[in-house]
C-alpha cells in the first residue's frame, strides 16, 4: 500500500506562536520551538517531520497563514 507522506514549511518570522496548529495536528508533528523569532514568539516547527500526513489542518487554522503544506505518495 502506498504510504502518504507530508511535509510542512513554516514561515518562522511571521509565526506568532499561538499554538493553535500544534493542538489541531492529528499526528503530533508540530511543536513550539524553544528559540524565539524576530518578534519574540516561540515559533511552530515540525518537530517530528516523519509523522506528517499532509492533511493541511494546521495551515487551515493558522490565523497568520504561515504554513505551507506538501504531500506525496511513496
Amino acid at each position, binding site marked *: 500500500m502506498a504510504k502518504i507522506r507530508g*511535509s510542512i514549511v513554516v514561515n518562522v518570522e511571521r509565526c*506568532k506562536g499561538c499554538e493553535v496548529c500544534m493542538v489541531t495536528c492529528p499526528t503530533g508533528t508540530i511543536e513550539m520551538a524553544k528559540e524565539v523569532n524576530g518578534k519574540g514568539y516561540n515559533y511552530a516547527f515540525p518537530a517530528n517531520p516523519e509523522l506528517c500526513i499532509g492533511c493541511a489542518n494546521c495551515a487551515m487554522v493558522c490565523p497568520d497563514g504561515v504554513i505551507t503544506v506538501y504531500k*506525496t505518495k511513496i
Partner: protein
Amino acid sequence: MVEFSGIKEIIKPGNLVYKKTNIMTENSLSYCPGCGHGTAHRILAEIIGEEGLQSETIGVSPVGCSVFMYNYLDIDWQEAAHGRAPAVATAIKRLLPEKFVFTYQGDGDLAAIGTAETIHACNRGENILIIFINNGIYGMTGGQMAPTTLPGMKSSTSPYGRDVKTMGFPLKITDIVASLPGSYYVTRQSVHTAANVKKTKKAIRKSFQYQKLNKGTCLIEIVSNCPSGWKMTPVQSNKWMEENMFPYYPLGDLKTPEE
C-alpha cells in the same frame, strides 16, 4: 538525518497541497496571536481567489480590530464610519450592481453602534454579504463589555460578570436578521478548527453565488475568540468558546433559501 533528506524530496511545487493565497498581501497581520480574524480573512481571500473575483469584489472595512483589513486583502476597499458599513455597502452595490460587495464587521461595529444600519440594510434585502465576527467583547479598545457579552462573563467594564438585571441580555442580532423578510441566507459558523473552517468557507462561497443571483442579504456570523480580551491563551480561549459561547450562540444555518 536520513528522514530529513526524505522530507526535502517532498517539498516540491508539484506536491503542494496548501499555500497562502495570493489575494492576501505580504503585510503582517496586526492581530494578537491566535485571533480568529486572520483565519476569517484568509478563507474570504481564498474564496475570492478561487472564484476569480479579485477585480470584481469591493469590501467595506469597519471600525474595530479589523479596521486595517484593506491592508491585508488585495481587492478594492472602502472604509466606512463606525457601524455604517451596511449603509456604505448599499450605496456601492446600487451604483455598481455588477460588483460583489461585502462588509466585514465585528460585534461592536455591527451589533452595537451599527444596529440600525444592519437591521435596515437586511430588511431592505440589499444584495450584499455581511460577515459578522462575534467575539463577545470590544477587543480593540481593551476588552469592554459588548452587547454580545455572555451573562456572567467578565470584561473590563463588567468585572463581576455581566449582570442581566442591570446590563441586559446578550443581543442575538443574527437571529433578529434571520427573522426579517429581506435576508436570504443567514448562518452562524466558527473558524477555530479545520472542520469549522471548511464549513465557513462553504457558507461564504454560497453567499457569493447568491449575490450573483441578486437574491438578498446574506449574513454570516463567525463566532470567534479574543485571547487578549478574555485574558486567556489562544488554545484556552478556543476551548472556552466551545464550552460557553456555542451553547448561547449555537452554530448552524438560521435561514436557508427555499429551493
